[in-house]
């Protein structure tokens, strides 16, 4: 795309896309000799210099183990790590830092709750509700908890457009329902779920709610208090932070009552062969030396998002999605998969006569990175009666020019397969 195009967009949205793109060194890479057009942000997002530098600076100037050293370097590392926790708390509007637990990612966060809360609270005949459009990471841990406890998994169906059937949800809720585990933004379809309604209905039935926020965090402003979520899981690498670090939010009273997930250093107060006592929150759930550099990197990513402004990012991404949806009309045989009214910047589609895998290979040769397959959501594919989709997902640095490149690529796919 030309600088002129960028300037036009900048004027339209008040969003400095030229500067933003300068912040992400990887966007200068060439793929098969062509400029990288990175449209696989729902899989993982790219990292700005500030995140890369935060990790490097930690290892260059601060590296020491945290929470245990009497020496100054350990104190500085601890301050930086706990500072990042505070940024994460503000990012999701949790009440206290004690409610913010560092984990490896949303997957580990859900496993923590399914194991610690699930296995200690569930008994045979209890019910867990998930939806038909969950990522495997918000299905399998619950199946494992069911297997261990005799609880039963119930599933909220979705419509053809990818919206939750809220009437069916209301009917599924009953006095045996103990946990509702639900996505905030569906990864394969982009649908945004009506979370406030979902949590209110669950609470009225006496169930708690875990929200898988992995896909929501980069697009939607998260307020765990306003949502009244009991647990909220997110991954750092989807919000322009490092891989291998994420956040589990949990209401303090729930976390207090839960047994530890893993045992080891840092999560204990005293250890003896007679009786070991556990540390206070959040450390009770953080056994072993954590990914300190990753936590600090995540803090830098949150700073970056705050600096750009989540609202401005949302406006820009929504504009890209509208433009993409409009362009799609000009492609015969293209079917958009996931047309919920409330939708994040995920564009999942199929092309008549061409398998998504072939679309992916041909686009890759144009430098365009998209995801193809079932997107770790096999039940969604089964529900919609398709084996796979091609998925372009937009991030804060994507441009209208890149959307044009995507459609030029799709037209090339059709030419190759004509």
């Amino acid at each position, binding site marked *: 795309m030309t600088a002129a195009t960028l300037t036009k967009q900048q004027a339209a949205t008040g969003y400095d896309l030229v500067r933003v793109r300068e912040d992400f060194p990887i966007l200068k890479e060439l793929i098969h000799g062509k400029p990288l057009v990175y449209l696989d942000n729902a899989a993982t997002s790219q990292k700005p210099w500030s995140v890369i530098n935060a990790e490097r600076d930690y290892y260059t100037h601060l590296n020491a183990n945290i929470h245990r050293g009497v020496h100054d370097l350990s104190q500085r590392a601890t301050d930086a790590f706990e500072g990042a926790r505070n940024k994460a708390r503000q990012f999701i509007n949790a009440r206290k830092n004690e409610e913010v637990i560092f984990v490896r990612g949303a997957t580990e966060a859900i496993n923590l709750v399914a194991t610690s809360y699930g296995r200690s609270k569930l008994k045979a005949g209890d019910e867990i509700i998930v939806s038909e459009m969950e990522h495997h990471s918000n299905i399998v841990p619950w199946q494992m908890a069911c297997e261990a406890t005799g609880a039963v998994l119930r599933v909220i169906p979705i419509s053809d457009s990818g919206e939750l059937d809220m009437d069916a949800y209301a009917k599924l809720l009953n006095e045996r329902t103990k946990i509702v585990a639900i996505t905030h933004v569906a990864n394969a379809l982009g649908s945004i779920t009506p979370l406030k309604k979902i949590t209110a209905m669950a609470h009225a039935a006496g169930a708690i709610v875990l929200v898988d926020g992995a896909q929501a965090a980069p697009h939607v402003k998260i307020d765990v208090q306003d949502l009244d979520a009991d647990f909220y899981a997110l991954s750092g690498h989807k919000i322009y932070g490092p891989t291998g670090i994420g956040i589990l939010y949990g209401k303090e009273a729930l976390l207090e009552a839960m047994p530890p997930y893993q045992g080891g250093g840092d999560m204990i107060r005293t250890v003896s062969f007679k009786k070991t006592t556990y540390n206070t929150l959040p450390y009770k759930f953080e056994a072993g030396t954590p990914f300190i550099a990753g936590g600090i990197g995540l803090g830098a990513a949150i700073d970056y998002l705050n600096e750009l402004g989540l609202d401005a990012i949302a406006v820009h991404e929504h504009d890209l999605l509208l433009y993409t949806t409009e362009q799609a009309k000009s492609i015969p045989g293209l079917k958009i998969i996931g047309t919920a009214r409330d939708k994040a910047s995920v564009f999942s589609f199929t092309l008549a006569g061409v*398998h998504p895998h072939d679309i992916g*290979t041909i686009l890759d040769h144009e430098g365009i990175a998209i995801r193809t397959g079932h997107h770790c959501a096999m039940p969604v594919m089964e529900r919609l009666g398709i*084996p796979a989709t091609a998925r372009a997902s937009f991030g804060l640095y994507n441009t209208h020019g890149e959307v044009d490149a995507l459609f030029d690529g799709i037209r090339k796919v059709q030419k190759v397969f004509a």
Partner: protein
Amino acid sequence: MSDLTDLYQEVIFDHNKRPRNFGKLFEPNRFAKGFNPLCGDRITLYLNVDDGVIRDVSFEGQGCAISTASASLLTETLKGKTEAEAHELFKDFHAMITTDDAQPTEAMGKLEVMSGVREFPARVKCATLAWHTLEAALKNEQDSVSTE
């Protein structure tokens, strides 16, 4: 640098559009199902094996152009081959699409058009799905085999 036309050759488009030996055999005495969990491709392979010789072979399923064409070409190549020859073919086929110096053998016939897959490591599993399924069918293992 890999070239798209190495992968998507005319023969592959032809077999993708008009897969040969597509459908269920009348009375197969061996069959197996194959699944590639990465892309959702599914295939069922049917065989009639008599005296160690593959008399007839067909397939059903859905997949990308590479997996469909590979399955179609497999069925054409296998008819009349012994089980031992089929195992040998898979070994040579696998070598051809995964290593730089392996040359196609004479027994491969049309399978040679798949050699372009070598430049596309992400697509090797598409090309081998039918072959993994064949191995399972020859052993008559009817549980679904997976490329993962």
